[in-house]
């Protein structure tokens, strides 16, 4: 729920500003590397070694190991780079939305649909 100084926080929303970009740099750099198929293979072959190569913090490594989107965001992850990580795992934005909101994927999809009513 972090917001830049002087801005009213928006519940359930972290503004990805300079502070978060510094905190998450290593994690996001690793996720950015997943644009390359060879990098994805290298990660999947040995996750711990790949995280070490990019110098991830313990908090970031745990969040990667747990596939925990909220923890990845709290550790400085940016959703656009994280999308490459979760995409590699075969998850889409409804799967991740459900995980973050503590809903089933079906309920999350129903909530999206209901926004159109």
């Amino acid at each position, binding site marked *: 729920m972090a917001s830049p100084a002087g801005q009213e926080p928006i519940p359930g929303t972290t503004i990805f500003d300079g502070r978060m970009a510094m905190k998450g740099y290593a994690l996001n750099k690793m996720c*950015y590397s997943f644009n390359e198929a060879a990098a994805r293979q290298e990660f999947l072959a040995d996750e711990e070694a790949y995280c070490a190569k990019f110098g991830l913090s313990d908090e970031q490594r745990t969040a990667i190991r747990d596939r925990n989107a909220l923890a990845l965001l709290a550790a400085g992850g940016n959703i656009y780079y994280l999308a490459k990580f979760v995409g590699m795992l075969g998850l889409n934005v409804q799967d991740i939305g459900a995980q973050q909101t503590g809903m089933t994927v079906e309920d999350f999809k129903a909530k999206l649909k209901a*926004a159109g009513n």
Partner: protein
Amino acid sequence: MGKIVGGVTTSHIPAIGNAIANELFEDPYWKPFFDGYPKAREWLAEVKPDVAIVVYNDHGLNFFLDKMPTFSVGAAFEYENKDEGWGLNPLPPYPGDPELSWHIINSLVNDEFDICSCQEMAVDHGFTVPMALLWPDQTQRPVRTIPVAVNTVQHPLPTPARCLKLGEAIGRAVASYPKDLKVVVLGTGGLSHQLDGERAGFINKDFDLMCLEKIVDEPEALAKYSIHDLVRLAGAQGAELILWLIMRGALGKTVSKIHSNYHIPISNTGAGLLVLQSAA
């Protein structure tokens, strides 16, 4: 003389790329979305633009946090699409118009918009999905393209007011081009959506419909919002509305609305489409 004939704004969700690849045009989930596009394509066939200036945001294909320019203008002979990490086959490259690009770059900097120029620029779904919706045949590239990328990844993002002004400056740049040439401006992304956090899945239909209306004749009303307002009202990624404002600024004072469509949900998004024609 360069002439902006009009603009098209459309959402650019990655899932649309998959749906196109799988030809889900008649699928009940997708039909209300895809049915919005034939009218836009008819209008393009009528006005026959030579060039499309595509205002979009890179989602971590071409730019990383090591260097994050606020506004970037492509100046390449060709723009490549690449794997964004999901293993999809890249679409064929898009031809550029470097002569017009450099004219725009010179004009913008002279107009006090100190943009970043790019002689190599990979374009992601923010660029390719709208292009595929408007020109579906991937064996043909009937328009040359100039990508204009805007930072929506790392705050501070440029303000809506600044974006509207950048659009106006792009309009002046095109109007001062000595060659006869017709330009369409695409503003991609939006409308309301949020992918991250406990607020994921936030969609604001009323706000989206208000934006679709105001952007036609009163874009200044939308330019009054702060980025923080947009995040609150349209969701974290709904701030992509600034790309629509750049498009709108480029079209000049008076436009006529040719067509619009709005559908909830496509993926996590309120999907909007708007076709505007510039005054003759």
